[in-house]
């Protein structure tokens, strides 16, 4: 079960034609898919489309009513390969993943499906993880569209435009026999808004219709000679067909002023930011009635030459707003104009930054500069609203003191103790080369652990250290999550290490979910699911590919983890060494257990609640415990002791009692200040009796001791 349940929202997907649909961008996309008559949908989670996968998973029963098959794919490659169903049959299908990282993984299958072409509409929904809040390398998905000649939609970020793009995407795909990619930026995925719904549609042609009547067409398979033909087909047939469809159905929009000496060309996804920036400059109102003509590229690949030439021909200068690099669109537009011998000046990354997100302020500055040079009577654009004074730049003293907030492990996370153990081992044996993977565990590279040297991609933790397969006095440690393990790490990491006789150490973190992406179930998840098979052990898989040195350790057992790691790093036994650290993701565990426990408490059942605390009078304020933990609930407070200066450690009420504080205090011989409180809720008769007896004796003794002490109190 995923971190966020959409069970309630999914019901709104049933609304029919003419009704107003309110919800997040992700839900709107799902609704649009249902309205498009798809036969299958799949994908792999990752921000910003994790919620799309969660919505789809929660909507499974609704989809099966509509004869739609939902596949929680093993990887983006599996998802992309799913599109093969649309090659020979008039089946509409959609797949989704995080881009560009997911597109990287998918590109083998994508290139194949793009080469052979499709019969049924094939749509790839890309969650574009670019700009603020992104956790991946900053690249563009645009390059994938260009290299395989798939079409790339980048609709305006309002729900109506997004829904239209989904529906038209399928039509465009069918009209041009080409898979289509729909790019949604992170904020568009999560934007809350509304649109007018249509009825959900069953697929006219079902998957079983295809399975029972197979069609074979060797011309669609990437093998000589068909592969050569495909390339020509792309250029001579599919491309013109796409251009034709885009023009006829006006996928790109001409907005703003009817005419003008200057104009703006913008990627659809950036339209809202552009309008706000223009508004601030006094060049538009809130409804997008801009004083300059705007050509909105809801399709950013392929470009429609005629439309572009028509837009630019009567203008002195055109501002091209294209986010990211390289500036593929700017290069293409310049080539198109040059070939038509048009002298319109294209101004793009000379006034806008070459790299980085185009936020409102960045765009406002770019527009101001463009208008100053080319604006004519419109320039310089007066700032229409909220003019901050010149001295408004943030004071330096503030910037200096604001502490950064790097992402970190959640309260009670089972991954934290693994790195506490590694940190202690580092104190003991010196630093190691640590090859990291993708997942929550990557937070180890940040404070307070500062562990990890590289990360090469999802599931590639061990492969990232494969060069270090040589004689050395020190072994390397690699990390891999259970998500990455099943995604590809079993073969790319473990299998690779076995085959190449690797002598290093891998720690697999088994927390029952693909946790970083929102707690989706995977093969080794423990929860039973009706439509998915879970409970497949990592241990058996690891042993199955030939690892003989394997240990399983509860991740909260810091001491055992340290000993096991030390063993793995020093054992004379040659060959790959795998340690599997088991501990359920605390976020998911709390969500699962909390309602059950509070119901038990309400029902009067005996429940023991555990949490940790620190005695302020024994804590000396050295914060060693924090440096070995970093738990959000382990924080600091001002020292109540008038003689001491440094803040003391303090456990706040968000503590879930995972036990790490005690383990670390023991294993690192830290400090006796920690205590665990076992709070018995709804105690039974025995509890009460026992507490009474112990309490009475202890209380009596305490009073006696207090009397002695208070003799000299002042």
């Amino acid at each position, binding site marked *: 079960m995923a971190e966020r349940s959409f069970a309630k929202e999914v019901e709104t997907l049933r609304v029919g034609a003419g009704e107003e649909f309110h919800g997040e961008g992700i839900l709107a996309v799902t609704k649009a898919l249902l309205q498009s008559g798809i036969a299958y949908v799949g994908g792999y989670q990752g921000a910003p489309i994790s919620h799309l996968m969660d919505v789809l998973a929660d909507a499974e029963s609704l989809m099966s009513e509509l004869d739609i098959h939902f596949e929680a794919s093993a990887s983006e490659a599996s998802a992309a390969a799913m599109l093969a169903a649309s090659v020979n049959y008039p089946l509409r299908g959609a797949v989704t993943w995080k881009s560009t990282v997911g597109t990287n993984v998918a590109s083998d299958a994508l290139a194949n499906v793009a080469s052979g072409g499709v019969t049924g509409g094939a749509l790839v929904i890309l969650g574009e993880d670019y700009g603020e809040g992104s956790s991946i390398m900053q690249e563009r998905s645009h390059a994938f569209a260009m290299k395989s000649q798939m079409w790339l939609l980048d609709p305006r970020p309002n729900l109506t435009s997004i829904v239209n793009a989904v529906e038209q995407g399928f039509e465009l795909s069918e009209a041009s026999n080409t898979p289509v990619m729909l790019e949604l930026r992170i904020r568009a995925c999560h934007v809350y808004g509304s649109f007018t719904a249509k009825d959900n549609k069953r697929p006219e042609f079902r998957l079983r219709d295809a399975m029972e009547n197979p069609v074979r067409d060797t011309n669609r398979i990437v093998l000589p000679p068909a592969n050569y033909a495909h390339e020509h087909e792309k250029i001579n047939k599919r491309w013109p067909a796409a251009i034709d469809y885009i023009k006829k159905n006006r996928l790109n929009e001409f907005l703003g002023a009817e005419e003008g000496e200057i104009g703006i060309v913008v990627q659809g996804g950036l339209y809202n930011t552009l*309008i706000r920036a223009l508004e601030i400059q006094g060049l538009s109102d*809130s409804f997008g009635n801009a004083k300059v003509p705007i050509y909105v590229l809801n399709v950013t690949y392929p470009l429609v030459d005629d439309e572009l030439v028509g837009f630019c021909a009567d203008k002195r200068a055109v501002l091209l707003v294209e986010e990211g690099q390289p500036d593929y669109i700017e290069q293409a537009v310049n080539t198109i104009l040059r070939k038509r011998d048009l002298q319109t000046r294209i101004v793009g990354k000379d006034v806008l930054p070459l790299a980085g997100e185009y936020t409102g302020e960045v765009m406002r500055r770019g527009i101001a500069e463009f208008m100053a040079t080319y604006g004519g009577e419109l320039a310089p654009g007066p700032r229409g609203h909220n003019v901050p004074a010149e001295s408004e730049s943030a004071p330096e003293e503030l910037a200096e*003191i604001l502490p950064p907030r790097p992402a970190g492990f959640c309260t009670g996370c089972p991954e934290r103790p693994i790195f506490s153990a590694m940190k202690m081992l580092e104190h003991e044996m010196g630093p190691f080369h640590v090859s990291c993977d993708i997942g929550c565990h990557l937070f180890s590279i940040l*404070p307070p652990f500062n562990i990890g040297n590289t990360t090469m991609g999802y599931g590639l933790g061990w492969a990232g250290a494969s060069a270090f397969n040589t004689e050395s006095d020190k072994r390397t440690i690699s990390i891999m999550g259970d998500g990455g393990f099943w995604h590809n790490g079993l073969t790319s990491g473990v299998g690779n290490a076995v085959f190449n006789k690797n002598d290093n150490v891998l720690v697999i973190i088994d927390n029952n979910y693909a946790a970083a992406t929102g707690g989706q179930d995977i093969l080794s998840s423990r929860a039973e699911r009706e439509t998915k098979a879970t409970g497949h052990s990592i241990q058996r898989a690891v042993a199955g590919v030939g690892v003989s040195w394997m240990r399983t350790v509860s991740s909260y057992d810091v001491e055992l983890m340290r000993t096991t790691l030390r063993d793995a790093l020093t054992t004379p036994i040659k060959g790959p060494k795998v340690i599997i650290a088991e501990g359920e993701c605390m976020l998911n565990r709390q969500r699962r257990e909390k309602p059950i426990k509070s119901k038990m408490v309400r029902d009067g059942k005996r429940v023991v609640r555990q949490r940790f*605390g620190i005695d302020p009078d024994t804590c*000396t304020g050295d914060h060693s415990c924090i440096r070995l933990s970093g738990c959000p609930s382990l924080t*600091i407070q001002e020292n*109540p002791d008038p003689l001491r200066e440094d803040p003391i450690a303090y456990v706040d009420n968000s503590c879930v009692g995972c036990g790490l504080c005690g383990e670390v205090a023991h294993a690192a011989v830290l400090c006796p200040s920690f205590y665990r409180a076992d709070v018995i*809720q709804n105690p039974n008769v025995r509890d009460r009796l026992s507490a009474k007896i112990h309490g009475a004796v202890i209380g009596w003794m305490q009073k006696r001791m207090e009397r002695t002490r208070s003799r000299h109190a002042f």
Partner: protein
Amino acid sequence: MTDNPRPITLAVAALGGQGGGVLSGWIVKTAENCGYIAQYTSVPGVAQRTGATIYCIELFPKAAAVKEGKLPVLALTPMPGDVDIVIAAELMEAGRAVSRGFVTPDVTTLITSTHREYAISEKSAMGDGIADAEVVLKVARDRAKRLVAYDMKAAAEAAGSVISSALFGALAGSGALPFPRSAFEDTIRAGGRMVETNLASFANSYERAQSGQTDSDTVVKAVASTKTVESKQALSKPVEALLERIRSSFPAAIHPTLIEGARRCVDYQDPAYGQFYLDRLDSVLSLDSGPRGYVLTETVARYLALWMSYEDTIRVADLKTRGSRFERAQKEVRVKPDQIVYLTEFMHPRVEEIADTLPAPIGRYIMASPRLQTFMGRFTKKGRHIRTAKLSGFLLLAFLSSLRRIRRSTLRYKVEQARIEDWLGRVKSPAASDYDFAVEIARCQRLVKGYGDTHMRGLKNFAHLMDASETLAGRKDAARVLSGLRNAALADDVGETLQKELETLSSKSKSVA
């Protein structure tokens, strides 16, 4: 175009888990019910895992859109200089919003809780790494058109709710949105969860924001003040003698510190130990003539009391078994009257700690015998769980605590007193020639803290600084350099920075020579 209808723009700055999403949802619902078109968006993802997130909300009057026959184009990111309302669920996040330019004097209402959720860099600092809240508050006062600031977390918790309800109440009470109070409350009711507590918290914050009363002037760090001796209190004879000695032999300005120090020593051991404390201070005062306000004596008084009450097993057992400690723990873990709580301590006594607590000759014998240590080590590999609220555990700790009577004969006592004497000697020797240097040497005691390995590391750093002070003696900049070295010792926990500084120092002094 300034006359045209514009959206109301809001930015909500919150940390993962603070309910920024819930708050945004409430604002959107309220606006929709009041005839507004509402849009909101955020960037979840890894930022949610304890990082900071900004929610961007835009509200637009529906009537204006109907009149125009067009939907407004709403932005997905807040734009500097164009944010009407900034809501920050934590003080430093308010600072960050100001720093990003979202708070401007011409338009922005800034609603912020003044409480702190400390960042990892502040928490993991070796000493005091807490960012200065005053700086943020000052800037917030300067930059915001209107500021509503107080501890909204505490306000919400007082009503049994969480911070989002207090922020929502403060937003409604600030009057920055053109919606009536009832519209906000209806949204909470429609939510159907924790309605009563949320409404109570809402009402509390609504009124506070309406009254315009904020804490922004008074949230200055509350300094723990020393307890003075109440005149009515009945005092034992030895304590009276102690207090009389402080009053008659030491300057009044430093009495509070001395009383606190003496109180610590008496609580730690007995009144005679308090007299011993004052004997030592006497010898410092004789070198401290006073024109500098007795900084040296006061500094030594503070650190000497801390050192003399070093945390040995006896002290820890004493503090852990006190009735007041049981009460404090119960309050802290929020035990309800009908519940039972048991406390478990995590102790890991090693051979060192055992030897420390034994009479010095026996302790020394153990520490001199590797074979005995190996043997005893077998039993101290694992930490102990001690259940203090059960008789067996309590009796064990009560017994350890009772060893106070033989403390003066323990190995640890002898070792610590020797260390203290050495330190005092080093403080006193430059007192006449370089007063500031003497003060700095006294302050180095701050490095000795913690238990086990941490304590050892602190002692090692302290020893390095004492060695350095020998080299520095007589130099004009001795005080400044030593203070720099102390900061270096607190810069990291492996001693890297200190090592570098020490190397630079020794190479410099060599080149001078």
